[in-house]
């Protein structure tokens, strides 16, 4: 369960998040959509404690965020760009994370197998292709079996096959009762993966509800059309 109340954040003059109120029940999968620079990544980073809000409160699984860190045990995060120490091998990175958290990566081998990373984990991370590094990021996010997943444009660098495997995996995580937050610009992908959407524009939540309702309200067949219509509507 994630509860966000009256969240505000500015970077200098730039007001990135304006009075965000959001409640995400456990087990819900939710897509965060909005144009570039609308505050999607900042919202996720605030929940991760990477960015400190100016005001407002965030509660994740009954912990109020105030610079504490234990709550992050429940969160797996896959960043937009995955870059890691150049000279390290993926296996070493996984080992390091396991030691750091003092927790075995339950799904480590399973994920490496699913993403077909066997030959890649024995190479320095710098020689890995962007897509494979992305997959390393996916393993890191999911190997500790966290109850909440934050995925920031997860399939952007993946080839169709990997993307398919990845989405299968996300559907399985959903079935296992995980709370999942995905930001993406690919609406068809979100339609496959989530039931709810949050539409953010200029740091404000314009819509929060199920995809079904959104389509009905806007008389559209696809999410892409509905979101495009909403973007125009707000600008007018």
């Amino acid at each position, binding site marked *: 369960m994630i509860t966000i109340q009256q969240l505000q954040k500015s*970077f200098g003059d730039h007001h990135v998040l304006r009075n965000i109120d959001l409640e995400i029940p456990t087990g819900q999968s939710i897509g965060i959509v909005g144009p570039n620079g609308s505050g999607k990544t900042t919202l996720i*980073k605030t929940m*991760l*404690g*990477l*960015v*400190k809000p100016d005001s407002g409160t965030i509660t994740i699984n009954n912990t109020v965020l105030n*610079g504490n*860190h*234990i*709550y*992050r*045990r429940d*969160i797996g*995060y896959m*960043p937009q*760009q*995955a*870059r*890691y*120490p150049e*000279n*390290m091998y993926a296996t*070493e990175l996984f080992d*390091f*994370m396991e*030691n*750091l*958290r*003092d927790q075995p990566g339950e799904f480590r081998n399973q994920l490496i197998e699913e993403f077909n990373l066997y030959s890649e984990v024995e190479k320095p991370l710098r020689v890995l292709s962007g897509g494979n590094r992305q997959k390393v990021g996916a393993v*890191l996010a999911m190997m500790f079996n966290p109850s909440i997943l934050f995925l920031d444009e997860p399939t952007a660098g993946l080839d169709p096959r990997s993307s398919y495997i990845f989405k299968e995996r996300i559907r399985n995580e959903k079935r296992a009762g995980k709370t999942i937050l995905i930001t993406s610009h690919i609406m068809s992908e979100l339609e496959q993966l989530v039931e709810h959407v949050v539409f953010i524009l200029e740091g404000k939540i314009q819509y929060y509800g199920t995809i079904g309702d959104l389509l009905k309200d806007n008389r559209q067949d696809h999410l892409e059309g509905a979101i495009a219509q909403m973007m125009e509507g707000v600008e007018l």
Partner: protein
Amino acid sequence: MIAVYYQIVRNEFQTLLRARWLIGYGLIFLLLTDTLFRFTGGGAEVLVSLSNVILLFIPLISMLYGILFIYQSRDYLELLLTQPVNRETLYWGLFTGISGPLTSAFLAGTTLPLIWHGNFSGEPAMQTVLVLGIGAILTFIFTGLGFVMGLAYYEEKIKGFGYSLMIWLFMAVIYDGLILLLIFLLGDYPIETGVVGLTMLNPIDLGRILILLEFDISALMGYTGAVFSQFLGSLKGMLTASFMLVLWLILPMWLGLRLFRKKDF
């Protein structure tokens, strides 16, 4: 907490050892020290020459390395910060994980030739330890300053590098000249106290003063050193300078920690 700290430090050590330039850094000191012995025939001259190199280059290399680490590891920092790890523990882990190996490489490179040329036995032992100690402290101070600059100018790398170079140039080269100018202009007034005070504000000058007081060679070590030794005398001067150097050791680390705790990554 201790376990997490240990993991971070160990990981930095491993990464650094794999990057071979650190070994090169140690080798340069090894060659330099050994060459100095062969050219000067040993004695205090070696240590004084070595300390001149230390005072000039260790600050530059440490600061550049500190800032470079911050800029190079942005995504890695982000990854670590999203783990269930306390920011303070992470900061100390990264800081010691970077400055520790740098200090070790310097110490290993200088200590070996000093041992085989017999500098650790008898009378020069104390002086040797002092020179190496100053090198080590300067490494920590300036790696810390590099961290501070990297965190303060996280998004503006050019500015960060530019200001860091300016800080180095100012502290290592210009400062002494400015004080000399001040004394030249205001020589008729009793400004010694002021000059001693100003000297305290520069860690490189503090290192220089400690060395000159130990070796009693004010003429070789710049003007501020001479004023300092005249004004404070040996023992009192050394104690004051050491105390100030310790304050300097704490300042960048503490500033860096403050920035790291508040920062939006």
